[in-house]
């Protein structure tokens, strides 16, 4: 179940869009992350304040994929972002 309130991106997280990808830096841990084009778009929507629960429908329409499949992929993606301290609830 995806949260229906926006996530918080801590100030120590820096993001840089590069072509269709996004690179992230957790300045506290010094760890870098690269996001694929779909994940980049999800990150962009999170940055803009979209709630995780709203991402499925938005991404499904943009990438012409079934909503349930997108939501299945979003759950571990968001969990991983939280685990790496790139977002918090």
């Amino acid at each position, binding site marked *: 179940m995806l949260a229906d309130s926006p996530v918080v991106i801590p*100030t*120590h997280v*820096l*993001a*840089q*869009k*590069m*072509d269709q*990808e996004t*690179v*992230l*830096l957790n*300045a506290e841990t*010094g760890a*870098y992350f*690269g996001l694929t084009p779909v994940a980049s778009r999800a990150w962009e929507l999170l940055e803009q304040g979209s709630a995780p629960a709203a991402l499925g429908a938005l991404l499904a329409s943009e990438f012409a994929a079934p909503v349930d499949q997108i939501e299945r992929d979003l759950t571990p993606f968001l969990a991983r972002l939280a685990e790496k301290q790139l977002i918090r609830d």
Partner: protein
Amino acid sequence: MEQQACVEVRLLLALLSRAQARGQTGAGVAAPDAQKLLQLACWHGVAALALRGLRRGGLAVKPAGDLPGFAQRLQERARADSFQSLAQLAGLREIASALKAAELPVIAWKGVTLAQALYGDSSMRASCDIDLLVRHQDLPRATRVLEQLAFQPATRFLTAAAAARANHLNCEAQFCRARDRLAVELHDEFMPRLFGSTLAIEQCLVRAEWAVLGKETRVRTLAPADLLISLCLHGAKHGWDRLKWVCDVAAFTERYAETIDWAALLPAARQAGVLEPLLTGLRLAESMLAATLPAPVSACTRHKSASRRSIAAIERRISAGLLEERPVALAMQDALRALSSPAARLRYLVRRSLTINALDVERFGLPARWNALYYPLRMVRLLRRAIAGAD
């Protein structure tokens, strides 16, 4: 560019060119070596810009051969540069906050703030360090602030005296932090002291503008006119041997042409003795990257023949597609070309002959009370080198 460049340089210029951005088409190019093209893009610090050119509309000039994997390898390099620029952005935020707390006014120069201003994207410009401009009198305090943030002085000299001498002459002090390998340079002048004074940092601080580095931090940056002059001085200092500096000037003309009072800038630059490098930078951007120059610059005939010679020499060097630093003799020629008048060139040569540099200090290592002996020893060293050169 008038002369025939090597295929890969022509292709790279086509990717970076403002004409390419405007969708124009250039002449045909045959059989490029993709590896060489990639090396050139990295050497010139323009991987991300070249990738952007490629994505925007392919090449203005069509390669006869294929470029297998070129875009992917360019992207990998651009990604690495992007990681580096994010780290520098984080570092700059941290340093800016610490300097603000210490009430030390500094200007962030080049690097991520420049990339953001010129290209709208801090990853578009490869940079190896964070450059900060500080007033000469603030250098010791700024050094202490950096040391509190775990930055250590970095130098290639073995003795502290030689390092201090090099810092003083080059107007820059280098620092590095082991934990994230971030490099920082503090500058108290735009050019080494041998060139004489150029833009006064004190005045630049008065005219400075603010750039936002995230939700909580902002940092001073140069006002546009100062920025352009500083970019041209920096290019001249290095003989314009990296295309990224020419790209910066070209991007500047596109971004700021309308906001600059060119009719006032040119006489002011002449008065400050920086007109020659300014015009060279602008004319290089026009010649190599099809930048559109503002009418007052195009109409300015001063230093035209000198600029033409400088530009031709720079273009020849870049066109050859070499991946190495300039030899010292060539660097000195470039330095002389960058100076506006015969008197300034003469002053430079006299200063260069008489100034004790870090190599003298390292080589002879005299105690402080014997400092005067450095002068005759330097003369002997230069004489011996000249005789060896004549042989």
